[in-house]
């Protein structure tokens, strides 16, 4: 039994199991979670011949170094990632958006993401995972999800319970583009801010802070002045909401966010730009561009069409 597995030689900074996340639990305080960059998550699964809710390993900055034990399997990595595959004495440079064959004793060293935060490792098969609320998605703060709600750790084994029949090598020509402009809609408390503050928000550049993780992205810049109240009655949050606490620096809610918050909401990142947003690295700058609901819906349709189009090319 358990003859196919990865041995973790190095776990990486924040490597967790993720899928499409879990629904209908906000009211008890459990966020959506799931892969941060949805498009890259879906592409990784398609490249390894899986359906679109198959658990993958998400890594941030530095990924894991794994040694494979078992029958031949395919893997694919998506994002903007440097990695190497070691086969005996041969060291192969890996390429994203392409499947690779792993054989017994091969090593996969995911060195780092390049000017981006998250990358994805999918296998042509199924990890052996215990799901919670039908999802493997790991929320390390709430200790929810597979691997007892923890990130991967060194010396651990990742067991593969099933390998797909008919391994087919697949490739996609795709390059992640980076953007500095993130499109945002006005939030429900937009009028809590001074005219000057509103202009700053839609005009100035903000710097992504080091204090960013799967829960939220903190931004630094000129203080956005609140002229009404720096607190609101606690109410629900969704991913992409931009809150501005008393210190005047915006915080964007990301996939593992607290479900309730009491700071004024100045804006909400549009769904079409969420994948790009989460890939902004600490230290890089971001600028918000205002769009209305109609445009946001149209932009999402375009984003979704482009994603479907990429999937169909694989």
């Amino acid at each position: 039994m358990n003859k196919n597995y990865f041995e973790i030689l190095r776990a990486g900074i924040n490597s967790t199991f993720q899928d499409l996340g879990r629904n209908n639990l906000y009211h008890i305080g459990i966020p959506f979670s799931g892969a941060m960059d949805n498009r890259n998550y879906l592409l990784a699964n398609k490249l390894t011949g899986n359906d679109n809710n198959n658990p993958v390993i998400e890594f941030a900055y530095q990924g894991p170094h794994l040694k494979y034990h078992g029958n031949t399997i395919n893997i694919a990595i998506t994002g903007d990632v440097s990695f190497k595959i070691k086969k005996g004495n041969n060291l192969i440079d890996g390429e994203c958006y392409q499947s690779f064959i792993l054989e017994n004793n091969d090593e996969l060293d995911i060195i780092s993401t390049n000017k981006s935060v998250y990358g994805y490792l999918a296998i042509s098969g199924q990890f052996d995972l215990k799901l919670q609320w039908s999802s493997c998605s790991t929320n390390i703060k709430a200790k929810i999800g597979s691997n007892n709600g923890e990130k991967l750790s060194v010396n651990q084994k990742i067991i593969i319970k099933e390998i797909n029949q008919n391994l087919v090598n697949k490739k996609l020509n795709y390059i992640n583009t980076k953007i500095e402009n993130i499109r945002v809609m006005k939030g429900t408390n937009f009028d809590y801010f001074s005219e000057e503050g509103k202009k700053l928000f839609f005009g100035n550049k903000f710097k992504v802070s080091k204090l960013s993780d799967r829960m939220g992205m903190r931004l630094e810049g000129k203080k956005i002045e609140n002229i009404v109240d720096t607190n609101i009655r606690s109410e629900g949050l969704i991913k992409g909401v931009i809150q501005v606490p008393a210190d005047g620096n915006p915080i964007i809610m990301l996939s593992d966010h607290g479900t309730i918050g009491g700071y004024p909401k100045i804006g909400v990142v549009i769904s079409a730009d969420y994948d790009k947003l989460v890939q902004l690295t600490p230290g890089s700058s971001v600028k918000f561009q205002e769009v209305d609901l109609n445009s946001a819906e149209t932009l999402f349709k375009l984003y979704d069409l482009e994603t479907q189009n990429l999937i169909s090319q694989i």
Partner: protein
Amino acid sequence: MIKNISNLGDAALYCDFGKEISKEINTQVIRYFKTIQKKNIVGVNNLTPSYNKLIISFDLKKINFKKLKKIIDDIEIIKSDSIQNKKFEIPICCEKEFSLDIKRLEEKLKMKEEKIYENFFKKEFFCYMTGFIAGMPFLGDLDENLRAKRLDTPRVKVPKGSIGLTEQFANIYTFESPGGWNIIGNTPLNIFDSSKENEPNLINPGDLVTFKRITKENYKNYHE
């Protein structure tokens, strides 16, 4: 009734029940929440009831703001008698090691410790909402003379089981988390259990809660 529905971003409805916070308004929020939950509307993927708001998140691939707003505008709400409130008595120990902020509260409220506890323990609380962290209940209302602001600097770690007070509300930290509420005691009871997928939360919106003081001995032996 919902006073106004607007959009929160491109994938959520923001239902506003008015500025006021009261049990009556919150009961309406909960009624809407339970009705919509039962309807299983295609595309709706999360509901977040709070004191006086209800946020309905949806999958933009399946439905949009305009279509969902129409459905919510036309919805018929389940009558009050079909919602059942559970009652709970939560044991808490208020020994020094657990009542981290009681001295601070004595100063803030200008009230003796015994009096603070006396007022607190005679109250029956109403659960307005759960969340922030998984399963955390927001309970109200504290008497006017027990209302204090948050700590100036929030704690990095509030111990699991801590009972906190702020403004008109009490809450229970379901697991160790950062937080700025004034801590007056600790419960040995598990308020959130992720292994119970059908009902991980002990306390849900609309439930009624009282607290019972227990000794340190009882606290220690609680799980035996």
